[in-house]
């Protein structure tokens, strides 16, 4: 077993354990902090996959913005003594059943696929994934339209969020 595989297994194990704590911890502030740990583990997975830009965006956007937004929302909507009551609804066992069946279905479907145990080819020498991603994101022949639509979507979401959360006096 190579060092890369050992690192992957450790990171994946820690990430899955913190993901389980995100969905089971009673204290929601702690759940949001476990989400930060999970997102950081996923960022390390991106780094192992040679996707440096995605790893950095994961840290900046997910941990820096989304997780902090979650912590704000949890603290703004907290009530005392709610942390001591069960945080799972009455039908949590059917939710667990659906989740286990989804995992089993995905695993069996994937294991029958021919490319399942494919290994990655080495990156071509001189290949700069970040530069290539930047070029293709703004190239009219590639992905400039989805890129612009995403920025319009973010603007619309921002206006919508301000409108919905605005207090009318």
């Amino acid at each position, binding site marked *: 077993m190579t060092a*890369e*595989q050992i690192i992957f297994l450790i990171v994946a194990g820690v*990430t*899955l354990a913190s*993901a389980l704590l*995100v*969905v089971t911890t009673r204290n*929601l502030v702690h759940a*949001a902090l476990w*989400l930060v740990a*999970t997102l950081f583990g*996923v960022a390390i*997975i*991106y780094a192992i*996959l*040679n*996707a440096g830009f*995605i790893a950095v965006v*994961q840290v900046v956007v997910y941990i820096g913005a*989304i997780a902090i*937004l*979650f912590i704000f*929302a949890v603290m703004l*909507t907290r009530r005392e003594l709610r942390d001591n009551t069960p*945080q*799972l*609804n009455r039908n*949590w066992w059917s*939710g667990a059943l*659906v*989740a*286990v069946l989804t*995992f089993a279905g995905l*695993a069996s479907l*994937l294991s029958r696929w021919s490319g*399942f*145990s*494919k*290994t*990655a*080819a080495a*990156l*071509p020498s001189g290949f700069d*994934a970040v530069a*290539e*991603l930047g070029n*293709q*994101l703004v190239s009219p022949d*590639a*992905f400039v339209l989805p*890129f612009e639509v*995403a*920025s319009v*979507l*973010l603007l619309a*979401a*921002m206006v919508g*969020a301000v409108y*919905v*959360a605005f207090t009318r006096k």
Partner: protein
Amino acid sequence: MIPLSWYLIFAAALFSVGLFGALSRKNAVAILLGIELMLNAINVNLVAFWRYGDVAVMAGQVFAVIVFAVAAAEVSVGLALVISVYRRRNTVIADELDMLKW
């Protein structure tokens, strides 16, 4: 080298954990936490398929960036709704939010 299967199984497990959270949590904010886990699992798959396919085709990474933008939009609107509902109803428990208008 790490085979592709490890990433796919990891992403499937992360997706299932997020699905359990989204289905079983009472608190609306916690449901959104579960949805974030599912979106992350999808991104792991997209980036893994980029790396194990033709790396010159950047569609996997571009799609991951678009998913980031959609996740940011979803979470900002979702949390704004949760806060707005909390101001009016003083609760964020999904079971108690069963009226369209009050």
